[in-house]
């Protein structure tokens, strides 16, 4: 196991870990979104889907891996950020970018941190209630979700978190592929395009849900 420790303690190894955990969490968003889309179908369909997920051994195993991935991604990210700061103890008086840095790439630490805080609130509100709280006690998850989404303050928090997630992913997805060493003149433009599309489309689809339920409760829809 020493080789694995050595690999993960190197600069490229830590980037590899960031890439693999990041892409794993990103792929989970697709599964999560699929489940959420049942909100637009019916209460029964949504609850049925949620129950089938919660009682699936494979899903529960992946769930444990997701928690590990979140912790690994967050801590490695913080550690890398600290190392990067230490690598330049004296700052420049004037430092101009060459033009390839983006808002997304510059703000990974900030966007990632806010998304993490959102995730804690989000997991407490829904995941905890499903596994151990009121939903576990027999209440409808659909009612919990739609009522929470209908609170304008929560919906606003949700939308802001999704915007920051999109910004995070806009750099993160293509960066992950580079860290894995996947780059070629033939495939990279496609990876970048698809990555950027999904980085915006997935959070936008998530954000559409609280917006929908806020508007519905307000009688707009």
């Amino acid at each position, binding site marked *: 196991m020493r080789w694995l420790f050595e690999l993960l303690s190197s600069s490229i*190894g830590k980037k590899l870990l960031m890439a693999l955990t990041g892409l794993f969490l990103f792929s989970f968003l697709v599964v999560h979104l699929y489940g959420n889309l049942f909100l637009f179908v019916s209460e029964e369909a949504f609850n049925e889907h949620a129950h089938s997920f919660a009682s699936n051994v494979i899903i529960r195993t992946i769930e444990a891996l997701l928690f590990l991935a979140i912790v690994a991604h967050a801590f490695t990210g913080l550690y890398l950020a600290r190392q990067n700061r230490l*690598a330049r103890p004296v700052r420049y008086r*004037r430092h101009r970018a*060459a033009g390839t840095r983006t808002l997304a*790439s510059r703000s990974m630490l900030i966007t990632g941190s806010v998304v993490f805080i959102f995730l804690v609130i989000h997991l407490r509100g829904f995941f905890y209630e499903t596994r151990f709280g009121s939903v576990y006690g027999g209440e409808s998850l659909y009612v919990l979700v739609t009522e929470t989404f209908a609170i304008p303050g929560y919906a606003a928090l949700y939308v802001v978190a999704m915007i920051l997630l999109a910004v995070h992913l806009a750099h993160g997805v293509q*960066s992950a592929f580079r860290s894995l*060493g996947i780059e070629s003149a033939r495939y990279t433009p496609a990876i970048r395009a698809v990555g950027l599309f999904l980085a915006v489309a997935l959070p936008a689809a998530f954000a559409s849900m609280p917006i929908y339920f806020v508007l519905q409760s307000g009688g707009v829809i």
Partner: protein
Amino acid sequence: MAAASSANLDLTLDVWRQASPDERGGFQRYEMAGMSPDMSFLELLDQLNDRLEREGKEPIAFDHDCREGICGSCGFLINGHAHGPQSGITSCQLHLRSFRSGDHLVVEPWRSSSLPVIKDLVVDRSAFDRIIQAGGFISANTGSAPDANALPVSRTKAELAMDAAACIGCGACVATCKNASAMLFTAAKASQLALLPQGQPERHQRAVRMVEAMDDAGFGNCTNERECEGNCPKQISFSHIARLNRDYIAGKLRAVT
């Protein structure tokens, strides 16, 4: 001789002065009046140093050698840009015609814990040497030059290897990277061998050893923002970093089996 391209320039320079690695540095302001636009930036510093010496003051220390952009000795940040505002050139190839009279220029050394300032604008780049010593070579005795076509190399690979070999080790990539990462330097020095047949036997071992030396020197981590490529005087492609990532990961995984 062509006439001067435009009128002479008056420039204000804020230059980083630091007497030794352990002493605190600071910016000193110098007014340079009537400078020819055809002067190189290093010649501007030469003129300033002549003046400082006449005044009995310590001249500004800066690295320089070939003064034609091939040795990699010179380099500092000029107004926040490594090697100045023009792309694809070194500080010695930068001419004052790139500036306008009245410009205020901030001249700073590369800033990285791994390339510490020795004096003024001179930094210690021996961390780069240690990366090369760790694996930036081939161990085989190459003997005399082989017949041109005895060892086939595709044109694409030859061009890519040559592009990587254009790295002059100036340090602009580290200087411009927000993380002070040396990935572009290390990747170029590994790729120039990894792309050619002679470099294959030690390809993965080389990547592992060079990255270890790079990490030991305390450079930052690459965050794939390509700033290094944009400020590289030899315009080394960022894609070499992906190759180094591949070779390093493969090297670590192969060592297991």
